[in-house]
């Protein structure tokens, strides 16, 4: 026939600022990513606390007072929830990044992740006891 087919591929653009709304798995991913905003902000809070600590008792006491602000408490609640989300998502994927082969078989993911959870609970309990909460 001698007729050449004309190729004209169509490119579907990805919406740069809203692609993650398209599927729950992307929403979960973005939630995990924004945990860094709260953990980062909390780190800055700790940094301020460290500064007040270095400035003497009066300065540190006023820092403790600031912690009682409703906005700071609200921030804590949100940050705590997201920090736990970070912990859970991190521990769950650690076995994928660090597979452990013992003999022929690989240690099951649940075991590696489970060990992290156990360590986390133990460490947290230790810190709480050491800080005099219990």
């Amino acid at each position, binding site marked *: 026939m001698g007729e050449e087919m004309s190729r004209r*591929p*169509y490119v*579907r653009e*990805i919406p740069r600022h809203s692609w993650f709304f398209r599927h729950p798995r*992307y929403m979960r*991913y973005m939630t995990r990513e924004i945990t860094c905003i709260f953990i980062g902000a909390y780190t800055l809070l700790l940094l301020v606390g460290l500064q007040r600590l270095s400035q003497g008792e009066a300065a540190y006491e006023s820092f403790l007072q600031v912690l009682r602000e409703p906005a700071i408490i609200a921030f804590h609640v949100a940050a705590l929830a997201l920090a736990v989300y970070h912990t859970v998502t991190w521990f769950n994927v650690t076995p994928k990044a660090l*597979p452990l082969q013992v003999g*022929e078989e690989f240690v099951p993911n649940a075991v590696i992740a489970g060990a992290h959870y156990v360590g986390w609970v133990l460490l947290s309990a230790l810190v709480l006891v050491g800080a005099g909460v219990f």
Partner: protein
Amino acid sequence: MSQRVVELEVLRYNPETDSEPHFQRYSVSCEDEWVVLDALNRVKETIDPTLSYRWSCHMAVCGSCGMMINGEPKLGCKSFLRDYEGVIRVEPLAHFPIERDLVTVIDDFIGKLKRVKPYLIPKHEKPLTEGEYLQTPAELKKFKQYTMCINCMLCYAACPEYGLIPKFIGPAAISLAHRYNQDSRDGGRDERQEEIATTEGVWECSFTGACSEVCPEHVDPASALQQVKIKSTVDWYTEHLMPWVKK
């Protein structure tokens, strides 16, 4: 064996006549146990012979029939009609240009496969007289799961970074490089690192994990990419801080 009428909403695109893709609705009677690919075949056979799509084995080993089914990257031959209600929306695999109807332009992926040198590069020449390569079951297990990739590109359709940054080498290609890097018979890791330890290599990955979620063969490309990141990081520090160490 009973039948049901399935409503398919398929994205059509004819490069010779259309300026944009558009949806077309088909009503087709299907057997209960059919897959979406069967429904498409019936459409093509009895309703609209112009409908174009790739398929081959119909048993999830060839990787040809990747498509978006209700917005999810799936193999047409592995998507059972019984799992879907109402109108089933069928579109070409996301993040690839549309050639025609459900056929995508896959040249980018093929090029990337070649770039990662997906073949054994032996450490030294081994003449036949030396006999075959010996490999223990443990050595085989180190890379076996990454051999299961059927190049269906569902992972590329799921990966948001590939969608946003087309030059990203992508999950399947990097996992394949990892498959050879992990193979005890191979000595080509340094060569492959030149490709995959680059910005558009593994470092574009943000560990979304969508690739592993959609992979029909449970290859878990996300795990391969994280392992490559760790090895590349160790490499980097070794090269820069201890350049006298031969890898």
